[in-house]
């Protein structure tokens, strides 16, 4: 097996030395595998879907837990990237939308309809959680029409503080103690399904005229208006969509940890999502996956460092801002993930 791998590697290396040969190899590959080019992403996600069912059978609970966190973080990262990366605003309040999703869905699974079978209950919780986060994001979305940049960032921060202190003071939501005894409904396949839904929606949205307009707003809002883009409604739409997916991530989070309190959704949570976005790369879905993946794994691997872990993460961010300010995959997309105009042809 190993020798076969080496043989393959040797073959590719030797063909790389001979450029002509390499081109030929590439050409034949393309000729015979247009179906592969067309369905490669489907294949990849299909295998990952199978993996999401199988992997938990073979690994211990800790690994499954980390994997679920990874998937949830990816959803959060993609959703924040829509606002921070693609639209070029700076939201610090993403943890608030997560909290809204988490609390509203927990009310559903814990008090309102706990007797429903999980297969029906959990999708309902996910939808309700996402929708309530989306609806509650409307005030912020409306304010984003009047306010820009730094000022909007401060407003999102204020929103986070409002949501957090509201949750702390509503006794029926558990106050500062939070809600206990949430059912552990989040499994790896569920989390992965939500990831697929998020990824597919965002990728299609970004490849549409709305996606182009969102990126146009980031580059120059005055020019975007001057070519007929209604930037007001587009800003509202982007905030609402982004918050919906943050809410979905909140639902998954609550039913993974099985315990939530207002402190789970503090400014640190928002900051962590920001780190993932800027680590992986702004305005890139593959960057979001990469950033969330690396962040989650590093966070676990650096655990032996104890208190020094809290030094490593910010240090990483500082180094990143110096050497690669837009992140590892900033403004670029992995070719498997990108949708080009050529792919619109039938």
């Amino acid at each position: 097996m190993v020798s076969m791998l080496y043989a393959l590697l040797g073959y590719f290396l030797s063909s790389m030395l001979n450029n002509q040969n390499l081109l030929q190899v590439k050409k034949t590959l393309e000729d015979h595998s247009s179906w592969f080019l067309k369905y490669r992403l489907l294949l990849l996600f299909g295998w990952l879907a199978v993996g999401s069912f199988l992997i938990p059978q073979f690994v211990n609970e800790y690994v499954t837990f980390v994997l679920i966190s990874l998937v949830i973080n990816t959803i959060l990262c993609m959703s924040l990237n829509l606002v921070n990366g693609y639209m070029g605003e700076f939201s610090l309040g993403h943890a608030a939308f997560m909290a809204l999703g988490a609390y509203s869905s927990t009310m559903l699974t814990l008090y309102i309809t706990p007797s429903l079978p999980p297969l029906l209950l959990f999708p309902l919780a996910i939808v309700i959680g996402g929708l309530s986060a989306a609806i509650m994001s409307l005030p912020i979305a409306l304010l984003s029409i009047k306010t820009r940049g730094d000022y909007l960032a401060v407003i999102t921060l204020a929103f986070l503080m409002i949501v957090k202190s509201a949750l702390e003071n509503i006794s029926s939501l558990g106050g500062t103690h939070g809600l206990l005894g949430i059912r552990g409904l989040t499994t790896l396949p569920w989390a992965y399904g939500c990831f697929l839904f998020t990824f597919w929606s965002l990728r299609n949205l970004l490849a549409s005229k709305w996606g182009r307009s969102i990126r146009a707003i980031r580059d120059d809002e005055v020019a975007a208006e001057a070519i007929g883009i209604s930037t007001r409604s587009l800003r509202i739409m982007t905030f609402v969509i982004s918050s919906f997916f943050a809410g979905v991530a909140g639902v998954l989070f609550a039913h993974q940890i099985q315990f939530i309190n207002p402190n789970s959704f503090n400014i640190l949570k928002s900051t962590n999502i920001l780190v993932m976005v800027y680590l992986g790369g702004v305005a890139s879905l593959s960057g979001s996956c990469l950033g969330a993946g690396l962040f989650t794994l590093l966070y676990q691997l650096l655990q032996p460092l104890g208190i020094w872990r809290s030094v490593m993460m910010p240090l990483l961010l500082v180094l990143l801002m110096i050497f690669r300010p837009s992140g590892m995959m900033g403004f670029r997309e992995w070719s498997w993930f990108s949708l080009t105009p050529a792919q619109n042809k039938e």
Partner: protein
Amino acid sequence: MTLNAPLLTVNALNKYFGGMHAVVDLSFELYENECLGIIGPNGAGKTTLLNLISGVTLSTSGTMIFLGQAMEKKRSSQIARLGIARTFQHIRLFKQLSVLENITTAYDHEINYTLLEALLRTRRMKQEENKSYKASMELLDLFGMSSRAHHMASSLSYGDQRRLEIARALALKPRLLLLDEPAAGMNDAETRELLALLRWIQREFSLSMILIEHHLPFIMEFSDRLLVLNFGKLLAQGTPSQIRQDRRVIQAYLGEEEA
């Protein structure tokens, strides 16, 4: 001069920035297929006037009527869809979008699919996307830039960025094109090329233009009619040859009495 109703009628337009009276009781008309040049010293309110017409800033008082519609309360995007496109004094491209996407964004209000269709990537969505892709490519072809369609807009040279900005404005299929110092930062050869390009655009797309330019030979040659602004007021208007002999204009520009 044509006898048709004017394309754009501006009446008693005023704009204050705080205590600064930037545009003072300005009235003029613009006809179909006419090229109107605006000249005046720095700070005369030329760019402010263009911003008012395109809705980038709102006027303090006065009326503007374009194709029979009142425009003074409309937002920039609404005015753009009515058929007024513009370029900017400092180039404002979408730098992180490809050359092609810069054009396509301007076509987007013409293509028709819902958000749901976009999320599901339905057949109709792809057809509509294809339509705008083809139209954008044709326009880029006319400007000789289709070979660089998939490059980042920021990678273009200065002159090409100017041209792309004009192409993007044309993608709106405007009736009126506003150009704010298109020849700024260009040498004589580039300016002559630009002049040829603008002439060709006027023939090909049959539209009216309002042009601001400091380069006097250029604007004298290009415009059918000139407005001269000074301190926000209309100092003079007329054909280039009339303006050339106007004493007040010479005074404002040279700042001294002619002998």
